[in-house]
């Protein structure tokens, strides 16, 4: 257990360092959210809304940045691992493949936290908006839960990436619908009912609700959203690990999985 956690940490740290050297990736997770936040806040600001709405919108933009980081990160992480020739060595090692991939997915969503923080700071100090967070502690908890949820969803996506090298385009297609499903871009109440239903199964959507609740200080909403986020995240982890095990088995049997 301890050695496995240590490897998880190493995989997280080293992947983060490797990612930090990739220019396109940095644009996605650092520059893009700030641009999105500026546009979103300007749109809402023009309507002369109160500080609470502005904060929610800024947060929505921040979370979109997190999505971009995670989806291009989790998707890219596997194909990068494959193209770096690291996928096969990790499969051939005693540590489960899921642990290495989890480290990578967490690294991507960690860069996402940066994007949340940067966006809020930019909205507050760059755009001079009245950002108000009722409960900073809840915000921290909700953000951590969202990181785990996003990483878990990334891991689940990565299973399909191991199976189908072309699934990268699938993850790119996912990026935009997920912004909508999480209610990050548009409040869910404005969308058709079925989209709201679909968003129930998306762990990070609950994470976003928890983040929004921490802004307004609604403790009950926060509790429910956080709990659901954690439960669904655990389900993702369990499902991913099980799937990865059978994917690995298939790869060894049929050799259809291009490990190298």
């Amino acid at each position, binding site marked *: 257990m301890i050695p496995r956690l240590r490897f998880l940490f*190493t995989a997280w740290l*080293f*992947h983060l360092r490797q990612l930090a050297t990739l220019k396109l990736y940095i644009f996605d997770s650092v520059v893009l959210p700030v641009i999105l936040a500026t546009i979103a806040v300007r749109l809402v600001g023009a309507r002369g809304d109160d500080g609470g709405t502005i904060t929610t919108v800024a947060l929505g933009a921040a979370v979109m940045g997190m999505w971009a980081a995670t989806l291009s990160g989790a998707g890219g992480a596997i194909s990068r691992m494959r193209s770096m020739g*690291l996928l096969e060595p990790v499969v051939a*090692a005693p540590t489960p493949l899921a642990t290495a991939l989890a480290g990578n997915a967490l690294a991507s969503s960690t860069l996402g936290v940066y994007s949340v923080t940067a966006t809020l700071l930019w909205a507050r100090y760059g755009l001079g908006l009245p950002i108000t967070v009722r409960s900073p502690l809840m915000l921290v908890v909700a953000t951590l839960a969202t990181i785990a949820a996003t990483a878990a969803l990334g891991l689940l996506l990565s299973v399909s990436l191991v199976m189908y090298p072309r699934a990268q385009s699938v993850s790119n297609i996912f990026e935009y619908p997920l912004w909508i499903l999480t209610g990050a871009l548009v409040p869910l109440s404005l969308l058709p009912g079925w989209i709201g239903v679909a968003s129930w199964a998306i762990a990070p959507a609950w994470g976003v609700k928890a983040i929004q609740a921490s802004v307004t200080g609604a403790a009950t909403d926060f509790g429910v959203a956080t709990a659901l986020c954690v439960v669904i995240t655990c389900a993702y982890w369990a499902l991913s690990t099980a799937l990865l095990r059978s994917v690995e088995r298939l790869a060894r049997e049929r050799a259809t999985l291009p490990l190298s």
Partner: protein
Amino acid sequence: MSDNDIEVENLVRVYGRGAGARRAVDDISFEVRHGEFFGILGPNGAGKTTTIKVLLTTLLPTAGRVSILGHDVVRDVQRVRRRIGYVLGGDKGFYDRLTARQNMIYFCDLYEVPHRVQRTRIPQLLELTGLTARAGDKVETFSRGMKQRLHIARSLVHDPRVLILDEPTSGIDPIGAREVRDLAAGLIRLGKTVLLTTHYMQEADALCDRLVVLAKGRIVASGAPRDVKQLAGISRVTELELTGVEQRRLDALRDIEGVTSVHVDVSGIQQIVRVQSAADVDCTAAIVRALESEKVERIATREPTLEDAYVALISSQDGKA
């Protein structure tokens, strides 16, 4: 337990199914003794990497039994993975934006090597592979030869008893290749058992105690390098360029005394004929006589290459089949 570190019995590996199925490894058996330097020699597509991947547990055998240090590669996957080290050729397999030392840490943690052990082992392995001076540099700045030595260093992080090297010198310049070969030879002195694949005859000759020659998924020769060369039984090659000679007359070349094999490549109306013969007989005159009145565009005799050895081994195998 026997003193064999690796045992391969009737290994078969088929890729694909139905009509498209292809036997990459077709019923091979061999064993590698403890402390031995063993080679698998074979041309492209012979099935070397396929065999290696079965040993590494990243491919399942279609049939047959393979065990390493007594552990079955299908049933005891985790035990096998903990006990073998391997190097798959190529300049990938690292976090290239990170340093050599950082990559070593990654692989140590991947193999659950305790930190206390890492502190002494990482410098030792970097020293062994001659990378100490560059340990703090990013791997992307390394030459292919250096990357290959780093591969060897990282394959040793968990101190495995068995080491598997797949074409460790391919794509590396002669000096780099010699360094890798020296390093591989040194592993035996550290008490390791080494299994190496290569398509360089000289490499196998210089390094291996014993070897098997693999062609089209089958073992066509085995034994000490000396035995294999004798088995190939060639030392002189005569090449001819002809046009429109009847097969019957070409077949007649096989009957010339000292000729071990005749191989014909046809391109258009041109025929390129490669005649292999024993060292002590000069067949040129006899060949010219046999082809009397035919149009011989070119005739030349040269020292045999590895390819010639394969041709001899494979065509003699075809003869038997």
